[in-house]
């Protein structure tokens, strides 16, 4: 037990990061399950992080109020974003949502209230590792419990064949709106947790680089598998730390590992874990 405590003190930032990245991976995984390549999760995270930080630090709101408001805001933004991009698919949706992410980042960069390029300072450490993992557990449990629900089925069906999905009466537009709103909420949770365990926010924390990372977690994990996404987040967060001894070249190894997994392990971690037919019937 004492050893565990020593380990935790030394690596607790890493442990926090894994938890937050896992939540972010889940926020993308639900979109991918619906076949929706919407890459705005980093932006949703940023929106919630800044709103929570600003309301609590600048306007002295209690966290119990600021946090839900921030998460709700991200969810609403997500739902609203789904409307104009309704007709976009695949790479077009990807780039439009990436563009949205960039716009959000630049807004954060240019506003006074967010601290602009200098960042937002002085956030009290109101949340902790326990909060991160409790949130991850709750979100995970909710997603797991809903995996055989009609909505999850509607998502999978929309991904498989949108026209045939409409043919069985599924309002695919509504599926997309709800999915993106849920992604906003989940990423929003990650944002709030990030703000109050990191004390300091900059717009660059929520830029395309982070979005790329989230994508990597999901693909390594197995695209549509939430469990895989979490595993992917864990692996890809730990890896650069494990290779720290390589200094400048440690990213080389990360990149190589990424390529190896993609080329040689098609279903990602989830694919390696489950036997193929069982996994597919689940998707």
């Amino acid at each position, binding site marked *: 037990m004492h050893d565990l405590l020593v380990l935790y003190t030394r690596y607790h930032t890493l442990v926090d990061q894994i938890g937050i990245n896992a939540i972010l991976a889940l926020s993308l995984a639900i979109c991918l399950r619906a076949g929706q390549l919407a890459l705005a999760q980093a932006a949703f995270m940023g929106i919630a992080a800044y709103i929570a930080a600003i309301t609590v630090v600048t306007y002295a709101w209690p966290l119990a109020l600021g946090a839900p408001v921030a998460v709700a805001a991200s969810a609403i933004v997500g739902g609203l974003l789904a409307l104009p991009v309704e007709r976009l698919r695949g790479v077009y949706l990807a780039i439009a949502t990436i563009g949205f992410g*960039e*716009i959000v980042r630049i807004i954060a960069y240019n506003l006074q209230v967010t601290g602009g390029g200098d960042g937002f300072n002085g956030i009290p450490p109101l949340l902790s590792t326990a909060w991160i993992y409790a949130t991850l557990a709750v979100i995970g449990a909710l997603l797991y419990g809903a995996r055989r629900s009609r909505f999850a089925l509607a998502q999978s069906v929309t991904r498989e064949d949108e026209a045939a999905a409409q043919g069985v009466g599924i309002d695919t537009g509504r599926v997309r709106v709800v999915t993106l709103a849920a992604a906003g909420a989940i990423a929003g949770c990650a944002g709030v947790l990030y703000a109050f365990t990191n004390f300091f926010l900059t717009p660059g924390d929520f830029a395309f680089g982070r979005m790329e990372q989230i994508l990597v977690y999901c*693909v390594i994990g197995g695209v549509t598998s939430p469990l895989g996404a979490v595993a992917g987040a864990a692996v890809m967060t730990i890896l650069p730390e494990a290779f720290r001894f390589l200094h*400048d070249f440690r990213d080389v190894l990360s*990149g190589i590992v990424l*390529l190896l997994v993609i080329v040689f392990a098609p279903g990602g971690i989830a694919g390696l874990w489950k036997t193929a037919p069982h996994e597919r019937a689940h998707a």
Partner: protein
Amino acid sequence: MLDILNLAHASIFMVAAFICLSVVLAGYPLAAGLLVAMIAAGVLGIVLDRVAFAPLRRRNAGTLVPLISSIGFAIVVEAVARGIYGVNDHQFPALVRAAPPISLGPVTFTMFNVAILVAAIVLMLALAYVMRATKIGRDIRAVADDRIAAALLGVDIERTIALTFFIASALGGAAGVLAGLQYNSVVFDMGGRIELKGLAVIILGGMGSITGAVIGGFILGITETLAVTFISSSWRDAIAFGVMFLILIARPAGILGRRALRAA
């Protein structure tokens, strides 16, 4: 044109700039540097295809996975560059850039800028010529249009794709050299700055349409300049992406997009 999103393009862009820089620093003329850089970029492009895309093509992996694969490749390339060249800015020697400024109305530029513009135009025209008037060009367009039909008609798919990557990467490399010259800065993460914009331009123009990409590029460039002039430079990128966003909403397959992705 091959329906893949290639995020490693920017890293090749950067490598080419470094290669040209190294050639010039070793005492050779700029033109030689450009040529060597373009060829090296082309070769690197083929390597990219072999390593990151070809194995995925064989198993029909969809849009997302190749994207990540290209990210992996980009990470490796950028990390190697950073390891070799360090994190600092590198500059082209003064000789290469010297030219007096000229004023034409409200716009100021130097012969150097003109040279870059001319080079860019020449390359675009060369690309257009290759695509329209040569067998390679026709093969590439055939594969882009309908891979299976092209294969049935005897086009060597893998070779054509490899060539497409060579050409695309060589051009990307040229862009890298030109950008490095224009801003007089060659640094390991220079790719990242243009990566998203480049992607946006391609998709905006409609994946698969070169003319569309060119038009998209012009629209983006003009929008950015107008934004900087009339609004403010710190909002430039936001406005550029905002315009792009609006255009995509109005035309979901890009401005000249010929291929609506699997019809809804």
